């Protein structure tokens, strides 16, 4: 009986632990965000100023946009490693075609981003290659294509429409923040209000059951990678507008990792079936504040990189326990 009762107690303890971990996964990001804001209010001079908040938010706008696309891909239990390369390619296209009106160049960049998504989605959904591998290839090639387009130069951009994205303000809010909010609204709408959004969650939760329920699994997967590609291209446009030139080497570098971090810390499980839009946005802001806080307190950028690595491992670890419980 002893072994039985300890087993029962063990199960109960495990259940409690699972509940705690689940709560942490779902709400940890908000708690952490509040804590870091409180910390900064107390210990960081001039933290609560309009300018500083503006700067902090602007800094994480591109990650937010990329992470939302990533969140949808992860919602289907996939991954998209090509996003950073797509950003760089998008910026390069923008500069190369800035002869045409800005709107046309932006449209072209978004279309190319979508085409990369078609390629990724085809490899994943139709050929059946694991998402990491399928998207790895473009991570490889995409940035180089951008470099080739720019031929080693970092040309500046002069188009007013494109520059307006970063320099313009609406009601005192920076254009980049507006650009990110547009993406947030679009993704939230897609996930919550469209058939496609429901179907992508179903595919991520149980692809076989979805298939047997008539869900067009392949089409859904392709669609998700296309959206991710378009959003990454949009982030590339924002990045180019913000630094007023295209840089094939640095634009979007490591963004696949930043995006995955935001998605995972925001509570979207890597195993699919769930997309947390607000959580992802909150996590992107959290990671930005964490970085600025560390740097403000004279830690180096290098240290903040290491902290990011630990945070992502911790967030995935919490998810893993939930998946088992």
């Amino acid at each position, binding site marked *: 009986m002893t072994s039985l009762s300890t087993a029962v107690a063990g199960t109960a303890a495990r259940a409690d632990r699972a509940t705690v971990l689940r709560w942490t996964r779902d709400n940890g990001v908000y708690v952490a965000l509040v804590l870091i804001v409180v910390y900064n209010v107390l210990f960081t001079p001039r933290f609560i100023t309009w300018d500083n908040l503006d700067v902090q938010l602007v800094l994480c706008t591109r990650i937010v946009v990329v992470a939302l696309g990533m969140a949808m891909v992860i919602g289907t239990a996939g991954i998209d490693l090509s996003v950073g390369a797509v950003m760089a390619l998008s910026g390069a296209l923008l500069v190369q075609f800035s002869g045409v009106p800005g709107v046309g160049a932006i449209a072209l960049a978004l279309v190319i981003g979508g085409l990369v998504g078609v390629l990724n989605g085809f490899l994943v959904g139709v050929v*059946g290659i694991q998402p990491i591998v399928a998207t*790895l290839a473009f991570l490889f090639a995409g940035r180089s294509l951008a470099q080739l387009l720019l031929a080693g130069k970092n040309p500046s951009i002069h188009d007013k429409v494109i520059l307006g994205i970063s320099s313009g303000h609406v009601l005192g809010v920076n254009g980049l923040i507006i650009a990110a909010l547009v993406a947030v609204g679009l993704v939230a709408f897609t996930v919550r209000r469209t058939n496609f959004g429901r179907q992508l969650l179903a595919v991520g939760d149980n692809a076989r059951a979805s298939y047997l329920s008539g869900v067009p699994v392949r089409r859904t997967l392709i669609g998700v990678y296309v959206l991710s590609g378009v959003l990454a291209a949009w982030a590339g446009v924002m990045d180019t507008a913000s630094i007023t030139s295209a840089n094939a080497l640095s634009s979007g570098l490591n963004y696949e990792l930043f995006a995955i971090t935001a998605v995972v810390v925001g509570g979207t499980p890597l195993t699919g079936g769930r997309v947390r839009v607000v959580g992802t946005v909150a996590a992107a802001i959290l990671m930005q504040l964490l970085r600025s806080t560390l740097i403000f307190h004279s830690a180096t950028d*290098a240290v903040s*990189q*290491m902290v990011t690595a630990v945070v992502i491992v911790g967030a995935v670890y919490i998810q*893993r326990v939930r998946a088992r419980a």
Partner: protein
Amino acid sequence: MSTTAPTGVPDGPATAGTGLAARPVEPVAATGSRVAAALQRNGVAAFAALALLVLVGSVLWPSFHTLDNVRNTVLGNSYIGIVAIGMTLVIITGGIDLSVGSVFALGGVVGVYVSNQAGPVAAVLATIVACGLIGLINGMLIGYARMAPFIVTLATLFGVRGLVYQLTGAGARTYSVPSDSFFAHLGTGVLLTIGYPVLIAIALYVVFHVVLERTPFGLTTLAIGGGEDAAVLMGLKVRRTKVSLYVVSAALAGVAGMLQAAQLVSASPIIATGYELQAIAAVVIGGTLLTGGAGSLIGTAAGVLLLGTINAFIRELQLDSTWNNVVSGAFLVTVVVVQRLLNYRRAD
């Protein structure tokens, strides 16, 4: 009661099991494609492509196959070649190690630093230990905590690069060794006109080829990738083997980084970004299945040399060197799609 005659079941009755019924496991690959798959897996295809490229190159450019040219190509690719050994082993288990580029940089910094402090022997040992430790972290999180390899090693890719920046003060502190030191000699030394790094790479290929093909550890590695559940049921030491392989991968990447630092007589924190991709491409082009279970180091060697030759081609054509990545990426996708089609099993 109307009873129909029971039909004879000549080719064996239906397989039981509901899960099976849903996803029938049937060997649908035809013999022809199996042969093709076997050829591709042992790097034969990569060697053939390599031979063709060398031939074409020699015809086009008289200088292409001069000894110096070949020597430089092989030396330049020996470092990525060493990295690809560990990557091959990890990929054979069905895993992936994205942290090798960062660990490569760490190996260079640790090697140079310790060499200046305590001599070359300590430098080699310290590099293996420090980088092996990173591999141990990867391996424990993957083998025991059962986290996805790509996410764990993506995190260490980032974290270790941060560590390297921190150690070098974001590049402000340069780590260099006297070019006449024994440590530098590891990278610059020559035996019978062949550079030490090349000899070390060849030795490592031989050793790990034997380990993979001729030891129980190697057979276990192949078995894990072929069917991890089956390997567990057979009573093989699955978790311990996986951890060891990530340690090996990181240690090899560190040694490669150390050798390159020795050759350059200094360590750079920004070196080897994207090496994980180069290594993966070489492994896959060499015929190792990205889904695990089959692969060879001979194939990987062919893959490394093939990519190196493409590199040389691009140089001879006076194209921008960034074409390398585009070609490698295209190669990677093509090979993976071909692998998938050769081993096609009906999905859904």
